[in-house]
């Protein structure tokens, strides 16, 4: 305790504590002034001390950031938290500095390239792959949605109308890039090659489910495909994705992170945390917002008052763009460029993909209670990402009625086969209830496992144990 080192440190602690207190007192002082309570000299004194402290801190911060030198004669504000000019007229900043952030697109609604220089020139084979993945996703959605209606699986969420955002972004990434998703991005995983069998296994929570049957349907994950397992709490993945991107930056591995979320989830505090951390800590990440117009029943005009999600980017010091999410090439271009720059420049990008959730929120929702059939029909019939890409392919003579008919038949067959296989499969072993809580099994859990086991042995006839894997 007597060592010199200790004494120095102790002084440091005291200094910090005292200054902390002063700041707090100054804040209280401010509060009282607001309340128009007359204030005495003691607090005056504290305010003075606090301002001196600010200077001290400012000096330290400026020392690091190399801002304006203090003896600078220029009439520039010296506040450590902002750099701009003084003005001498009172004016509030308008919330929409520009009148609406524009929507970037490559194709018009008829699938025609608008500006040839923006055409990503994706080869025919890859375009057909886009189309097949988008339609296969659509087919899988139909079958799984129906199977929930028939009581075969417990729950489902469709991706109808958002296929362009999934495939366009997934195609622009490197397979090694890590994906943090929300729950309506099955197409990203499908594009990466997640087999139908595993989609089905997860929805059926059968013994083949990589997640060991522990989560509700659509909570997919794949280590091999760098797709972090989905979790139900909204927006929690956003700061996590920033952290993962920071790790990749330190590894110098030429990998980026993409983080998907809905415009509803973007209202969560975690979204703010993730954006701010990624910007200040310079993380190579793409924040990909699917703005599909609704968060369950809540329309966007009850979700936010600013210009969508893209408008928040500048507030965080983040490069941002709004794209037409139903234009798979626009999504592709934006993601590709964001990825390239995120890695090259170690900074985050925000992409807001405008789209529309054509399906109900989930099988627990009936959206006719809060939106019109006409509205849904418009997007389904007039502005659908799948039809837009099909127009593009048809115009090039890459795809016709015959191909369409054959593919529909084939894709349906693939999905049905996987579906039937998953349905026949046994459920995961009951002991899997207890593993993976910790890396090792603590004694208390071991005891609970044994007690459940004894119980199941004793009362076997009351439990459908034959449905479970041994």
């Amino acid at each position, binding site marked *: *305790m007597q*060592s010199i080192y*200790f004494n120095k*440190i*102790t002084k*440091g*602690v005291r200094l*910090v*504590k005292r200054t*902390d207190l002063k700041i707090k007192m100054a804040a209280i002082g401010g509060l009282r002034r607001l309340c128009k309570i007359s204030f005495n000299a003691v607090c005056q004194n504290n305010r003075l001390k606090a301002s001196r402290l600010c200077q001290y801190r400012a000096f*330290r911060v400026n020392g690091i950031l190399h801002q304006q030198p203090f003896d600078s004669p220029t009439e520039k504000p010296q506040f450590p938290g902002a750099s701009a000019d003084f003005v001498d007229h009172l004016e509030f900043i308008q919330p929409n500095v520009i009148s609406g952030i524009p929507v970037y697109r490559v194709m018009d609604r008829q699938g025609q390239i608008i500006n040839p220089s923006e055409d990503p020139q994706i080869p025919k084979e890859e375009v057909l792959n886009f189309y097949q993945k988008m339609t296969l996703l659509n087919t899988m959605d139909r079958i799984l949605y129906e199977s929930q209606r028939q009581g075969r699986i417990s729950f489902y969420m469709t991706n109808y109308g958002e296929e362009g955002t999934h495939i366009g972004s997934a195609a622009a990434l490197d397979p090694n890039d*890590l994906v*943090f998703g929300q729950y309506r991005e099955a197409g990203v995983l499908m594009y990466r090659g997640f087999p139908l069998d595993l989609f089905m296994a997860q929805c059926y929570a059968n013994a083949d*489910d*990589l*997640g*060991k049957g*522990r*989560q509700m349907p659509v*909570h997919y*994950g*794949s*280590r091999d495909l760098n797709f*972090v*397992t989905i*979790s139900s*709490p909204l927006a*929690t993945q*956003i*700061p*996590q*994705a*920033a*952290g*993962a*991107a*920071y*790790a*990749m930056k*330190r590894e110098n591995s030429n990998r980026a992170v993409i983080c998907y979320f809905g415009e509803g989830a973007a209202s969560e*505090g*975690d979204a*703010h*945390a*993730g954006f*701010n*951390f990624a910007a*200040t*800590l310079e993380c190579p990440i793409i924040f990909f917002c699917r703005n599909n117009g609704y968060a369950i029943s809540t329309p966007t005009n009850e979700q936010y008052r600013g210009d969508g999600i893209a408008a928040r980017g500048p507030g965080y010091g983040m490069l941002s763009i709004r794209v037409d999410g139903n234009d798979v090439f626009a999504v592709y271009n934006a993601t590709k460029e964001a990825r390239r720059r995120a890695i090259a420049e170690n900074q985050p990008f925000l992409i807001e993909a405008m789209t529309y959730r054509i399906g109900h929120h989930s099988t627990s929702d009936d959206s006719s209670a809060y939106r019109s059939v006409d509205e849904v029909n418009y997007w389904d019939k007039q502005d659908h990402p799948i039809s837009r890409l099909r127009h593009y392919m048809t115009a090039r003579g890459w795809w016709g009625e015959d191909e369409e008919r054959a593919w529909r038949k084939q894709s349906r067959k693939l999905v049905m086969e996987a579906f039937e296989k998953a349905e026949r499969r046994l459920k995961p072993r009951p002991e899997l209830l207890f*593993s*993976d*809580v*910790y*890396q*090792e099994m*603590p*004694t*208390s*859990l071991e005891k609970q496992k044994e007690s459940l086991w004894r119980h199941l042995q004793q009362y076997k006839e009351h439990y459908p144990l034959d449905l479970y894997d041994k």
Partner: protein
Amino acid sequence: MSLTSFSPSWSDTTAMAAAARFLLRTAGSKASITNVNSCVHSKLGLTPLRVSPSCIPHAKTQKRHAAHFTFQPDPVSTKYGPMQKMNLFQSVTSALDNTLASDPTAVIFGEDVAFGGVFRCTVGLRDKYGKDRVFNTPLCEQGIVGFGIGLAVAGATAIAEIQFADYIFPAFDQIVNEAAKYRYRSGNLFDCGNLTIRAPWGCVGHGSLYHSQSPEAFFAHCPGIKVVIPRGPVQAKGLLLSCIADKNPCIFFEPKILYRAAVDQVPVEPYQIPLSQAEVLQEGSDVTLVAWGTQVHVIREVAAMAQEKLGVSCEVVDLQTILPWDTETVCKSVVKTGRLLISHEAPVTGGFAAEISSTVQEECFLNLEAPIARVCGRRTSWTSEFSISPPIRLNLILSQYMLTTEIARRLFRMH
């Protein structure tokens, strides 16, 4: 055996009365005594019982105001090589230093950690290891923990600092719904076992409402995380290094009152103290005393006092890991002594003592010779010392007297 002896309010009242008498003798302030009494009365609606003088030690310790305990250094052992005198924050720094030196993926981050942290735990580390490894984050606890989870998922060793345990609640969702369940929900495809969250914890005298809390019980309800609390510098380093190496997300609560007050000879080289293992600090035959963190030092004094004043032999157990906790060591001790007293700073209702008590009752019912006693925080919440709040004074200054009174009254029915 009268029925009333089982009523908690009875013993509470007794202890409070004892405390009030002590305050009368030490503080010498009429105002505060009146406060104490009125507090007891209005809260419990009972008249304090008379306490026999034999239970209230007329200690020479009456002048203790700043700390309510005496830190006992750990016995010096050269098992892990050269030692250095370190206080608790220096032993934490030493553990972090060892980690950064040996693990190139390790990073340390949080509010104000770059310049050394408000409690000085990260002093010098940024300069030694670079600003990409020891860095400030924006002021946002859910961000700090979320960011740490992501780092760990991507394979890095993430050591997050929450500036005070009182401010961990914005990160509660990230800890409870995310960190704790990452491995389980992904079927072991992904985990954040490389995440350790450090936070200064517990009362410190002037900490008041929001710099004093002991929130371990909130996390003890949550399978998937580990919660660890050291009692001094030697344990702080060894347990922190175990948390960092452990393949599960860990919360490491550091008793902030000990940062400077506790000094040990601490090995300079890295070493680990196993998690989920309680330590028996003193063997005894009549009653088992269980605590963790700062309160360990209080129960050590209680053991001495109980021996001296009551002729009771106490076994002193430092639980060290709150989750998953070492039921075996505690139960084995209770089987031997037949009596158990658990003490923690956090409020008694739903506190971790309740869990220990319930488990011991299940496992050792036939060995118990008295009801299990819990002497824990009784205030609804902290108030500022400067407003001379009687409850905080009671907790800060008088705990060992309360505990000894409890041993006499409840565990041995002495009058």
